[in-house]
């Protein structure tokens, strides 16, 4: 390692880049284990920092046992039947369903943003209101949401929609505005109609950036979804976390949090891959 290894033109070797990129993970795990062990030495019944064995056991039960509120009779059967009736699967399914609905509802937001950017009358009609609506803290509207949409699925999905769509609308709007006007003119001179321009020229171009912007908002979607599930629900990953928190079931909460992180990472990865496959010409970001 020569002097200047901290400078811009340094080129870390393979071993170095592997070691450096995993260092913080190891440090985090090490620090946790150290604290957990110290706490357990002082108080063997500590529940704030479960040991790895406790977490493994908690997670095993979550994967293999049905949820407490379900019939306990379901523990027979092969691995797959047990898995399909398990607490973790039940919660993941409920949360994923809401998550997907919310993602589907973001598509109209993109279309609206596109139209606002291209059609002046649509823009005039919506822009000011969306700009205002974007600044509303969705969570503070909860009581209204409950009254308008009940406490079932709809209010949770609407919470996400209200929280995230304005951002997506404005983003698509700005991206649409970013498309050079010459291209629109050119398309018209080549005989395109209004909707050809909108969907075949502009939308095609902004699509990869819009997908990226949705991808970056996944965490906001998840945040609103968790808030909704913690406030009122009978299943879902955040419901379980809220319930377990009431008696400090950290042995299940910590694996659940990691599981959510993994799921989000996979969705993110999938969207990046799809984006690359659909728009191979797009290289930025």
């Amino acid at each position: 390692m020569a002097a200047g290894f901290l400078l811009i033109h340094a080129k870390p070797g393979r071993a170095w880049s592997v070691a450096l990129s995993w260092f913080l993970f190891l440090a985090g795990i090490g620090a946790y284990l150290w604290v957990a062990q110290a706490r357990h030495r002082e108080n063997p019944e500590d529940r704030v920092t479960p040991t790895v064995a406790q977490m493994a056991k908690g997670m095993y039960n979550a994967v293999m046992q049905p949820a407490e509120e379900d019939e306990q009779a379901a523990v027979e059967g092969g691995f797959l039947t047990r898995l399909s009736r398990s607490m973790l699967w039940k919660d993941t399914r409920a949360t994923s369903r809401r998550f997907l609905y919310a993602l589907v509802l973001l598509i109209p937001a993109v279309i609206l943003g596109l139209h606002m950017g291209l059609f002046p009358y649509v823009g005039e009609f919506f822009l000011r209101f969306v700009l205002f609506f974007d600044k509303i803290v969705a969570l503070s509207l909860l009581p209204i949401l409950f009254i308008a949409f009940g406490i079932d699925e709809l209010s949770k999905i609407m919470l996400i929609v209200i929280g995230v769509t304005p951002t997506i609308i404005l983003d698509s709007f700005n991206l649409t505005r970013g498309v050079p006007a010459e291209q629109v003119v050119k398309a018209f001179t080549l005989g395109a109609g209004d909707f050809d321009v909108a969907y075949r020229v502009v939308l095609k171009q902004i699509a990869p950036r819009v997908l990226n912007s949705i991808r970056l908002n996944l965490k906001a979607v998840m945040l609103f979804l968790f808030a909704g599930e913690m406030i009122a629900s009978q299943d879902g990953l955040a419901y379980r976390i809220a319930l377990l928190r009431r008696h400090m079931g950290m042995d299940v909460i910590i694996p659940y949090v990691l599981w959510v992180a993994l799921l989000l990472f996979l969705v993110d990865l999938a969207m990046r891959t799809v984006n690359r496959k659909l728009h191979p010409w797009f290289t930025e970001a």
Partner: protein
Amino acid sequence: MLWRFATLLFLAASAFAQKPSFTVGWSVYAGWTPYHYMNKSGILRKWADKYGIAIKVQRFDYAPSLDAFVAKNIDACTMTNMEALDMPAASGVPTTAILVGDYSNGNDALLVRGGLQLKDLAGKKMLLVEKTVSEYLFDRAMTINGLRDQIKRVRMINTSDSDIATAFIGDTSASAVVTWKPMVSQIAKQKGVTSLFNSSQIPGEILDLTVVRTDVLARPDGAGQKFAKALTGAWYEMLAQMKDDKVLAGIAEGSQDTVASYKEQLSTTKMFYSPKEAADFGASADLKAKMALVRQFCFEHGLLGANTKAVDDVAIRYPDGTVQGKSDRVRLVFDVSYMQLAAQGKL
């Protein structure tokens, strides 16, 4: 001059440092809000000075106050008998209840829409904060009415207490709700809502306590004992003043409430105003019978933790020395000695 000032500062600092300091956490509830006034009016400071210690008072939301107590960030905390058992005691933080403040005498209630009866609730939607005294109340209501086998068939929806009133009022598809005051009062005002069961039908089962960590009480320098005595002294001096409307207004202010609303909440709270009453209740056989129900409920619902294999693993010791559970695993202690000292005027 500068030297003198520096010395003075040093002396003040060291005096401050030598004084053992303790923190009490409380959360908004009719029986606990007096802590706000006790701190503000100087009653607590007077008693702390008498015992040569410093006592800080900190307001929390309920769940974080429990977390802070379990994490040993605070020395004393207000909580119900159920949470004392399933949070600190079951997490291996031995806990001693030194003050029995009151019991819920109608503060918690099960309300329904459209004139339903308990037997009609199977298959209906019910909002409540699961795994708390609300679920306990519901469990008891069904058990007392011989409907125990139907409990599982009610569709419980875990709902945060901060939104439960609007959620129930707004969503007419929810048939029942279990919650506590002041939300109960708001919901009961709605048309067509009736109360099916409330905590006055299970008197003394939902107790509101002030608990101290047992290791704080056992501090070798004896400061923990002083802390418990100062707290008890201040508490009963506080309660003795609660007939005065001005004092009640000062207390209500602690939860941004009006005197009228606070009085209404007190009407369904059985406060133990005199230390003798409280100590007698704490030493009664009745308390044991009630705690037996509570700990069985906690165990059945897994609230004592996944590692607790038997209900006896989290044992409770009572003032007469009897132990519920394994005697080598006492985690919760009811200690009436401080209340008795207060009753005898010996604090």
